């Protein structure tokens, strides 16, 4: 049975919410570990931006689903196979270059996705996208500068960030591998076209990598499955930490 527009939209919004929540959680893990006070604050701002975006997506998902689930239910009371985030955003923090590279690769995709969504036929989603876009454009500016600084920096910074790029590249394909959800959102809601996003993404990523004297890796085998709920081994630990409070004290509030 073909997927309805409503089903696809709900699934799509949850994917957006899960990307935001999981990357936000990864960045939150870095709180108090920043290399400099100023960079610490920048990172904390990014993490909070993502948590704020996740709330908007989940609140809307709850409304679309109509089954009484609220933001907390989506964020804290699902198990790992129910999360639809990209494998890229759940990758462990590693060193500073890894953190910057993960965010650089993801946000180059995310800004294009958001930009396209501001023109989609679903007004509520378009409004969320417009708001998130201003935040993520700034993030991307910040992390792109870091990619150039590290790539075109010292011998060691170049070597290490080049390794980050090589290691994370296999997780970049998933964002553009369209399935039925993407097709329905594109065809019935004027949503993003993954193929078009990929073309622009490659160009934008390549431009910055070139400035950073880094070589864009060859496209080899690409990992996938995150959006279908098949996550990497790191994911369970992330969830355990993130959900600990709600699982131990169900319904706890501030």
């Amino acid at each position: 049975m073909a997927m309805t527009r409503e089903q696809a939209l709900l699934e799509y919004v949850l994917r957006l919410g899960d990307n935001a929540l999981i990357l936000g959680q990864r960045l939150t893990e870095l709180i108090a570990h920043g290399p400099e006070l100023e960079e610490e604050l920048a990172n904390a701002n990014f993490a909070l931006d993502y948590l704020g975006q996740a709330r908007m997506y989940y609140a809307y998902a709850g409304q679309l689903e109509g089954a009484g689930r609220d933001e907390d239910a989506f964020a804290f009371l699902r198990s790992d196979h129910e999360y639809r985030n990209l494998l890229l955003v759940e990758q462990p923090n590693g060193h500073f270059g890894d953190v910057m590279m993960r965010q650089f690769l993801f946000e180059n995709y995310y800004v294009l996705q958001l930009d396209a969504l501001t023109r989609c036929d679903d007004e509520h989603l378009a409004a969320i996208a417009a708001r998130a876009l201003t935040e993520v454009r700034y993030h991307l500016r910040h992390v792109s500068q870091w990619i150039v600084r590290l790539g075109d920096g010292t011998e060691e910074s170049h070597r290490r960030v080049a390794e980050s790029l090589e290691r994370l590249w296999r997780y970049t394909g998933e964002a553009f591998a369209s399935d039925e959800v993407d097709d329905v959102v594109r065809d019935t809601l004027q949503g993003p076209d993954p193929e078009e996003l990929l073309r622009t993404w490659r160009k934008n990523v390549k431009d910055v990598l070139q400035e950073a004297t880094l070589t864009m890796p060859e496209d080899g085998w690409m990992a996938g499955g995150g959006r279908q709920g098949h996550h990497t081994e790191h994911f369970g630990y992330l969830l355990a930490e993130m959900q600990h409070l709600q699982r131990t004290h169900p319904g706890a509030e501030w």
Partner: protein
Amino acid sequence: MTGDNWPLYEVFIRSRAGLSHRHAGSVHAADDQMALDHARDVFTRRSEGVSIWVVKSTDIVASDPAESTEFFEPAADKIYRHPTFYTIPDGVDNL
């Protein structure tokens, strides 16, 4: 990576259009663009500004405290330089 290696920048923020930039504080940064980003993240998190200037602290030419007597004291007894004989109209807050 330590703060010692990154130069200090002074941050000036214009809180809204029509006002002038005011010194807000300082940040450490490796280059000019990073200084701007850091100033934005540290000093405008609660919508405190619409424009930011950053300048390397070492590029600021400052008056010497040892010379403050000849620098500033001569102005102290020249009351006629103060426009104290005018009343400021209501509604002018930022003169």
